[in-house]
């Protein structure tokens, strides 16, 4: 267990994240130009789509149906549990509770990628269709959370624009587009572009996490504004959601690696798709709350401690 934790903490990917945090704390002038950040995002999302699609192309549908249904279920349930906890225990107003729920129901693609990389280093073989599940998990939670908000309060934002923002948003287009391309062109097609999209992947991810560390550290200033409850929420909620997902995943027939990665996905909070949709649809929600919780607390927690825990749990269930 401690071994596993150490492997994770000492991988270049996680260390790059830590370097980003440190660089920001010592007020280094290191910063990524915005186009580099965007280029890395485009590359990473397309790459996981391509790989997942190519894998899907030789996977029997019967193997996918169970995990897919479980994923959709979790996409509907987790925003509701988040909302209820925030309202009842956190005494948060409706709009902010719904906004945060949208983030915790949806998924962080980077956490997913890191979990997968971690599993590979640990020697797990992970189902190839996991990226398809990411795409499935991203959207429903945002829809559910916005529905809650719109049912219960007067609002200023636009429901339809928010939905379009998610569905036609960059991350979905790249992920789903990549999946389809990978599926249609198959393993042979993937082979053509593998040196770029497969071999280079973990290195590009390292660079990306360096930038994520810089970004997350900038958020740390806002922790005080977020308050103690939100800090606890940002650690406990992932553990609950993640455990639930590991259990359901194993029940749906996923391998040890697969269910652990599903756990990390469900435990993660979105900070790309959800913020954009929420900002459009629920402008009166305070970004300090949802961005700080998802990017400043839950993301680093999952990256360093959460992922090894979900793997340990997945292994333990296997018996």
């Amino acid at each position, binding site marked *: 267990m401690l071994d596993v934790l150490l492997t994770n903490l000492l991988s270049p990917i996680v260390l790059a994240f830590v370097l980003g945090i440190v660089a920001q704390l010592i007020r280094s002038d290191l910063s990524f130009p915005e186009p580099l*950040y965007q280029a890395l995002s485009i590359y990473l999302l397309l790459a996981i789509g391509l790989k997942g699609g190519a894998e899907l192309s030789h996977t029997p549908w019967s193997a996918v149906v169970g995990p897919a249904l479980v994923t959709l279920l979790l996409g509907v349930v987790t925003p509701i549990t988040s909302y209820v906890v925030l309202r009842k225990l956190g005494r948060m107003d409706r709009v902010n509770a719904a906004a945060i729920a949208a983030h915790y129901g949806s998924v962080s693609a980077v956490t997913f990628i890191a979990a997968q990389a971690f599993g590979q280093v640990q020697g797990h073989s992970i189902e190839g269709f996991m990226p398809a599940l990411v795409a499935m998990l991203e959207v429903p939670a945002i829809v559910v959370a916005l529905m809650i908000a719109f049912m219960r309060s007067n609002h*200023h934002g636009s429901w339809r624009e928010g939905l379009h923002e998610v569905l036609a948003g960059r991350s979905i287009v790249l992920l789903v587009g990549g999946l389809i391309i990978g599926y249609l062109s198959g393993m042979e097609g993937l082979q053509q572009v593998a040196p770029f999209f497969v071999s280079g992947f973990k290195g590009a991810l390292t660079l990306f996490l360096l930038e994520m560390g810089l970004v997350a550290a900038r958020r740390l200033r806002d922790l005080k504004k977020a308050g103690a409850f939100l800090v606890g929420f940002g650690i406990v909620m992932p553990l609950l959601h993640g455990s639930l997902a590991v259990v359901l995943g194993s029940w749906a027939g996923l391998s040890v690696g697969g269910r652990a990665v599903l756990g990390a996905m469900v435990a993660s909070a979105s*900070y790309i798709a959800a913020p*954009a949709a929420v*900002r459009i649809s629920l*402008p*009166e929600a305070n*970004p300090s709350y949802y961005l700080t919780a998802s*990017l400043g607390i839950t993301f680093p927690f999952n990256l360093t401690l959460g992922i090894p825990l979900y793997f340990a749990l997945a292994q333990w269930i296997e018996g």
Partner: protein
Amino acid sequence: MPTVTLKLVTIVAERVLQERLLRTLKELGARGYTLTDVSGEGSRGVRASEWEGHNVKIETIVSPEVAERIIEHVAEHYFQHYAVIVYAQPVEVVRGDKYV
């Protein structure tokens, strides 16, 4: 060369508003705009999304009436919940009919 005095209206807003603002400008009578990627700080520290990038600056040259309408619209619809500022200046242009 005969010059006319029109209004240069500048809006600085978080990126998430870009599309909506440009659509609105057109509806309110602006005939063109110039867009710059900027960053900045103001009363609201936080911007919506890191992936979205920072702010945009939208500049449009319009008649004084259209300028008034734009400022009013932005103030009414965006000031409360979004990070946005708007200001106006007189500018001298040639080919004044191009902008109105």
